[in-house]
């Protein structure tokens, strides 16, 4: 799209959208939202960027390889954190019972690992959305997406 208005507006909007997405991810345990919603916002900001400028420009910002790395990395991150509970001598994905620190309710670091989990999910969802978008738009659906 070569419309100058759209480009300018997007250039302004995208950072705010991304910050909002990160906010939603980080505040998943404090307010409505969380990893998936925030990740979706984050991912759609990138999609918006790619749409308004150029597909290649978008790919330059976040390469396919990087994107799929992030995608796998998000999943691995999640499971590793889950295993952390085991390592601490409790059950899989255990949070409070494993003795992780909890802050005051309402503060950012008040949910133990939930914050980290949301981050992993957010990264995964965002990169998945981005990958999907590219797969479909470049007509190279590898069909290998998953939650």
């Amino acid at each position, binding site marked *: 799209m070569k419309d100058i208005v759209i480009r300018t507006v997007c250039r302004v909007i995208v950072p705010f959208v991304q910050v909002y997405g990160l906010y939603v991810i980080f505040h998943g345990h404090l307010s409505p939202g*969380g990893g*998936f*919603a925030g990740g979706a916002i984050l991912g759609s900001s990138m999609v918006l960027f790619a749409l308004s400028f150029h597909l290649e420009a978008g790919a330059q910002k976040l390469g396919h390889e990087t994107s799929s790395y992030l995608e796998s990395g998000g999943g691995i991150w999640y499971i590793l954190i889950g295993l952390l509970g085991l390592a601490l001598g409790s059950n899989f994905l255990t949070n409070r019972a494993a003795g992780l620190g909890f802050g005051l309710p309402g503060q950012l670091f008040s949910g133990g690992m939930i914050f980290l989990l949301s981050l992993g999910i957010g990264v995964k969802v965002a990169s998945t959305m981005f990958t*999907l978008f590219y797969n*479909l738009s470049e007509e190279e659906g590898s*069909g290998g997406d998953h939650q």
Partner: protein
Amino acid sequence: MEIISRLLENYYYFVSMVLFIIGIHTMLTHSNLIKKVIGMNIMDTSIFLFFVSIGYRRGGMAPIIQPGVEAEMYVNPLPSALILTGIVVAVSVTAYALSLIVELYKQYGTCCANEIAQIRAREES
């Protein structure tokens, strides 16, 4: 009369069932594959709607712990949380189905199930 009043009371169930049927009907009758996927989404959405409406409490608050608020005041968070997962699943299924459709379109040059069937029948005979 009683039925109607009950229906009105539980209109969200009713609506979600109607949506469900619309979704299935779309999946069923449309030959266009993309419309099938749309129908699938409508169907899924109806179920999500149903699920979420189960947990809704009239005048309830978002289930975030705040000091001084009774537990009854909150909306049941579980269905919403579950449905979030459901949405993720639905999204990925949709994406997957779309990528398959793209592939099919590349192979057959059409998105119409009937035409694909005809092309195949012609090829095989």
